[in-house]
Every structure is written in C-alpha cells, then in structure tokens.
C-alpha cells in the first residue's frame, strides 16, 4: 500500500460510529452508522460508509474513497444525489458493526471463543484496513465510556495500567452468520486449531453456529473433531448433514468411534449412512454395532493387525507400512492360528529390533492377556491398570480373537470419573 505524507495510525470502530459527516463546504450531511468492508481480503479494507442523512433520515451508503478526511469527523465532497445509494454490498463485503461488533468470534491462536468489544483499523493514507479485534476489558470500558475513570482509578489504587487485548485479524474467525463462514472459507482459520480444542469450541457454540462451523471444516478435520465431541452433540451435528456428507466424515473416524456414533443415531439415518459408506468399512462397523456399548464388544475396534506365527519380521513390517493408514492400532501385532486363536503378541518395538528373517513365533510373547467380549468396562479398566498395556485383545466364548480395545477408548469412559 502506498504511504503518503499522512502518518499511519490506528483508529477504533467505536470512535468512527456516530461521527458527524460534513461536506467540503461545511454543511452537515449525516452521521456514520456502519462501515462496509471486504472480508475476503486478508486485512479487510473499508469499502463503504453507511450514513443516516440529516435532512430526511434516509439510510444511504457512500464509497469510502469519497471520504476526504476522517479525523474525528468525516469530510466528504459536495454530494450529488447519485452518490447516495441505498445500502447494498457486493459479494464478499459486509457491514462490520452489524456482523462483528458485540458478536462472538473464534480466536484461532488461543483456541477460544471471544466477544468482540471493538475493531481496530490501520489508517494508511486515506484507506482503512481492519487489522485487530479488541476482546479485552479495556475495550469494553471504552465502549461504555468509562475508560478514563477506570484507568485513573486502577493507576492510583494498584499502580496498574490496563492494556488493550487485541487479536490480529489473521487469527480471527467470525461466526455470526453462516455466510461469514462461507466467505472466509478460502482461508479457513478454524483448521489451524487442534481438533480437540475445536471440539470444545463447538460444544460451547449455539446450535446454529455449531452446525455452520462444522460444515465449514474439511472432511478430515471434521472427523477428528467429531471424535472429540460430546456424543449428544455428535448426534445433532450429523443429523444436520445429508447422508453422503455424513458418511464421508464417519468413514474417516476410527471404527469404534464411528460405531458408537451410528449406534446413537436414529435407525433410518444410521442405515442410510451405512449404505453410503464403503462396503468393507460398513461391514466392520455393523459388526461392532451388534455389541452393547458398555461391554468389551462395544468398546473394541476391528482395525488392527494379525499375522500367522510363521510370518517373517520383514514381511510383517512391509504389511504394516501398507495397511497402517486404515488401522486404529499398529503398535501391537497379534499372532493367530487358522481358527483365530491368539498364540502370542509382540510390539512394534520388538519387530523393529528383530532381525528381518526372524519368524514372529520366535520373538512373540505367549503370555497374552485378553478379555471376554461380554466383559464390563470397569473390569477392563482394572486390567489396563494392572498390566500397563496400551491395548487389550477381545475374544469370544470360543477364545477367538474378535477385536482390540485401545486404552484411549477406555480412557474416555473412565476419565470423567477420575478425581471426583
């Protein structure tokens, strides 16, 4: 941006709203109601000013480039009737006060929902660029008009200076309408947030923002976020999607999480989603769905690796490399016979340190701890605590290996009860 003689400075939206507008001959034109900005730019430039005219109370919009000076009051050239148009913005533009001020935004840097107390613009030459969002108490006091007394009091009493709490616009994701999420989707900032934090944010939003935010995520982020979300909210998020989108996202989730979620959905919705899913994944999920949620069968996943005991270490490694993407667990390998009975277990570490030509049977541990498919979760938790393992295999009444429970999945069951 070109910088003229005028120095650069910062100015708050609250200082502009309500300012009087004069034309170059000093006649009062009206007052500022709002500013329009192009939200698709990385630092949105102000494009329009919304005025209430003094003479007939009409609300009109004026291009910002007509504004000659904006120090305290706005000076515009003598206006012709055709300069004053009814409010209408181009695609990608919106009125900043209306869409942002006092509304909620996501601070993607701090992974928090904040409320906008003010907007700060950089004034360069005559142009204004939205650069910061003020979310601090100081900003709130400025809006209320108590900034000066409060600052004086704090300085006298506690020798404390209040500072503005500003968030750079590049870390701000506006939420107030679904349009806003769509407009900024090109550089969706929500993807910068860790899915677990994103899940917390989604839980705190209202039902409309929630589904708008969720829809704006790419499939992979959506799946990871959904895994971390409260089951009740999972259901309502998926309910709002159509079958095809829902099945895309659920396919990306881990098998056991996907099964839990489908189990909570209405029957026809769940069946519709299963039909849309890849055949293979759908079969696995259906298998898991047939077990009650609070027992071993409902907690386990079937996406893990099993081998014949005669498999060589290098072959096993090769298989892992190929399959790992679709597996929920690769850290343990289970050796099974033709009838799926567990013969032994070895860890990825054992495999990596073994000579390539060694057979798994020679390095596996045959003292395998397993749980019955009907086992209750508190007993399984005891086993995890006792044996200090990361996953526990699940067997049916005939001792056949049916699945594996990850410590992570059980942790979600027991963690809420810890420390209470």
């Amino acid at each position, binding site marked *: 941006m070109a910088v003229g003689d005028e120095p650069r400075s910062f100015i708050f939206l609250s200082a502009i709203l309500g300012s009087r507008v004069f034309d170059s001959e000093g006649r009062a034109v009206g007052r500022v109601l709002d500013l329009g900005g192009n939200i698709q730019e990385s630092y949105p430039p102000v494009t329009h000013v919304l005025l209430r005219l003094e003479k007939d109370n009409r609300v009109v919009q004026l291009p910002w480039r007509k504004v000659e000076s904006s120090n305290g009051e706005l000076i515009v050239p003598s206006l012709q009737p055709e300069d004053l148009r009814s409010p209408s913005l181009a695609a990608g533009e919106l009125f900043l006060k209306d869409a942002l001020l006092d509304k909620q935004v996501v601070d993607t840097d701090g992974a928090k*929902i904040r409320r906008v107390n003010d907007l700060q613009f950089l004034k360069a030459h005559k142009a204004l660029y939205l650069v910061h969002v003020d979310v601090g108490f100081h900003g709130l006091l400025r809006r209320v008009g108590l900034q000066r007394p409060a600052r004086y009091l704090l300085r006298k009493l506690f020798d404390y200076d209040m500072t503005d709490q500003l968030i750079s616009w590049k870390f701000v994701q506006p939420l107030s309408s679904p349009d806003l999420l769509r407009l900024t989707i090109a550089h969706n900032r929500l993807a910068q947030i860790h899915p677990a934090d994103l899940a917390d944010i989604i839980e705190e939003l209202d039902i409309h923002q929630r589904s708008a935010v969720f829809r704006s995520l790419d499939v992979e982020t959506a799946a990871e976020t959904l895994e971390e979300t409260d089951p009740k909210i999972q259901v309502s998020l998926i309910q709002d999607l159509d079958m095809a989108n829902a099945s895309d996202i659920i396919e990306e989730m881990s098998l056991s999480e996907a099964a839990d979620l489908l189990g*909570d959905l*209405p029957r026809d919705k769940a069946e519709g989603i299963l039909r849309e899913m890849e055949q293979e994944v759908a079969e696995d999920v259906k298998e898991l769905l047939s077990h009650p949620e609070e027992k071993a069968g409902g907690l386990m996943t079937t996406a893990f690796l099993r081998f014949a005991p005669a498999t060589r270490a290098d072959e096993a490694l090769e298989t892992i490399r190929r399959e790992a993407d679709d597996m929920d667990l690769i850290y343990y390998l289970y050796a099974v016979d033709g009838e799926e009975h567990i013969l032994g277990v070895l860890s990825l570490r054992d495999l990596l340190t073994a000579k390539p030509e060694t057979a798994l049977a020679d390095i596996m541990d045959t003292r395998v701890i397993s749980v019955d498919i009907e086992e209750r979760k508190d007993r399984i938790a005891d086993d995890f605590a006792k044996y200090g393992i990361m996953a526990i295999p699940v067997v049916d009444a005939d001792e056949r290996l049916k699945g594996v429970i990850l410590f992570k999945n059980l942790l979600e069951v027991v963690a809420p009860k810890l420390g209470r």
Partner: protein
Amino acid sequence: MADIHFGVSRALREGLPGKKHWKTLALFLALVGPGIITSNVDNDAGGITTYSLAGADYGLALLWTLIPITGVLIVIQEMCARMGVISGKGLSDLIRERFGARITFYLMIVLFLANLGNAISNFAGVAASLEIFGVSRYASVPLSAAFVWWLVVKGNYKSVEKVFLYACVFYLSYIVSGFMGKPDWGEIGASFLRPEIRLEKGFLTMAVGLIGTTVAPWMQFYLQSSVVDKGLKAENYQYIRMDVIIGSVMVSVVAFFIIMLCAITLFQNGVRIESAKDAAQALAPLAGEYCAWLFAFGLLNASLFAASILPISTSYTICEAFGWESSLNRKFLEAPQFYGLYSLMIFLSAGIILLPDMPLIGIMFYSQVINGAILPVILVFMLLLVNDKRIMGKYVNGRLMNCISWLTVAVLSVLSLGLIVVSLF
C-alpha cells in the same frame, strides 16, 4: 448416564406425537426441567414471605390474584423459552448483540445488585428456618454457603440439575401443611368466585407484591439459558412449552396453599406477622407443631434451592454478556471471572447475614425495589427481541400474542413502578 442418554436420543428420534403415548411421555420427561426448576426457584424466601403476609393480613381476599399471576407467568416464560430454543442463545447474549455494549454493561451491574439482594434474602431464609429448629445462624449460614459453593464448583452440573429437580418435590410440604390446617373448601372456592379489590394502599401494595415476587428479572435469564443448555431444536418446542406451563401452575399451587394456610389460621385468629419465620412459629399453637415444622422445612428448602441457583445464574448471565469463559467444565483459572463472580456473590450474601445489626428487612426491601425497576426494561428488551425476524424467523410473536404480551408487560411495568413509588413515599 449412558443409558439415560441413549434413552433420550431414542425417544427424540421416535417420539414424535401421534405415535405411542409412552414414547411421548418419555420424551417429555427427558426434556422437562428448565421450566419447572425456574418456577420453583421463583418461590424463594421472598416469595414465601410475601404469600404468608398476604394470607395473614388479608385472609382469603387475595387468593384470586393467583389466576392472573399464573397467566402472566406463562406468557412471559413461554417467550423466553421460545427465544432460547429458536436462537440457541441466552438472553444476555441476545441483548448484548442487539443493544450493544453500553446498555448491556449498566444492565448487568443493576442485575448483579438486584440478584445479590435476592441471594441475601435467601440466605436470610436459610438462617430463619433453621433457627426454628434451634440451629444458630452462625452455624447454618456458613455451612449452607459452603455447601452451595461446593455443590456447583466441585460437583457435576448435570447431577446438580437432577438434585434441583428432585428438590422440587419438597415444595409438596406446603401442600401437606395446608391440609393440616383443616381448610373449609366451600369458603375458599367462594373467594375465587367473588374476586375482591379493595382500594386501599396496603391491599394494593400486597397485590402488586404478589405479582412482583412471581415475575423476577433473573428468571428470564435463567430460564432461557437452561433451555439453551438442553440444546433443543425447534421441533421439540412443544414439550418445553408444556414444561413452562406445568411449572407456572406449580408455582401458583404452592402459593395457594401458603396463602390459604396463613389465612385460615393466622388471619382468623388475628395474629400479626412480619416474616415467614413468624408465620411458622405462629402456626404451631394454631395448627399443630408438625404443621409448623413442615412450613419451616419448606422455607429451608426454598431458600437453599434459590441460594444455589441465583449465584450461578447471575455469573452465567454476566459472563455470557461480556464474552468471558463461563463453563463449569473449566477449571478455576481458566474461567476466573465466572468463578470469581460466583464465589463473590455467595460469600458476600452469606457474609452480610452474619454481620450484627444488618438491616435485613431493608436490604430485602430495596432488592425488591431494584427488581421492580429493571423488570420493565428487561421485558421490553425481550419483546423487541422476540419480535425480531432476524433472530426468531417465523417464530416471532403472532399478533394476538403480541397484544397479550405488550399488555402484560405494560400492566407489570405500571405495577412494579407503582410499587416503588408507593413504597418510597
């Protein structure tokens, strides 16, 4: 928990009306709570005092006012519940977004003061009711404050809400004690058929007081937030409406029995009382010791119930308006304003009760005045919001509903302002 949740989602998916009745019932039971809890909290120490005084001073003459009061409650709460379901936002959230920072800031300060006054009167209620059982206030107030604080900060909000819902059952003690006073139903029925208005200051003040104690500003905020917390969608709205109606009727039933009991015992024997505690004590010789105990127990339950909900509701409301972290799932340091406000409110209100020579009656009185003064403001904001198409879409008030609600708001506003004027001079 898991089973209940499973039941809810199953009920949600299958329980649309017209299918099977038990499913509709299951769905209803899963969704009730906000309306019933709010209404019952509304019968707090201040409410019970007012009802007792109304019965003791004017006998059965004011009973009929409970009918319009129920109507007013339903109209107001229905709008709140509807806004909560449709917008998915709390009332202070909507006020901030629609009316800006300045109005919200001052409104929140006044609301905090009014709610602090209410909290004080509820801790006073705890102290008074336990003194009847011979427990010193220097034991009962700190213990109950610690209990309330612990319940919310260390407990789990879902379980807390269930405790509250069960606590509503204890309001039945007033109904039982009402029957123990051996009422003459014919005479009581007649008092409804011949509504009486006396144009004298005391009578009118009491009538307004009855309405004022039933529609409190904080209720609107609490109800709407708890509806939002339930995460309901528009299609489940009818169940919430049912919840609100049942809650409002419950309030009036409890109020009816308190007024009635005090009327047929205290009023008929010419006993003058100043507070709910006096009422409980005066009941013993007239209606038996058990009846007095039940009455005192009811007061304890109501005070404790309201003392638990008011501080948390206030901190939610304020934090929501200013965008501060406000979730019980956060740790103390992650949500300092939320826990700070909550703790401040509990310990301030409990502490004030313990100071010797505090003019408690005066504090309660002025908190009622502040309540009365901000009620019209909040009601007008509510009506503007509920009629805003951008927020409510097609769920804005219909024309009839608007007539009724504006009329209600106008009458309520005139009454509460009138009460302030009357009481100040």
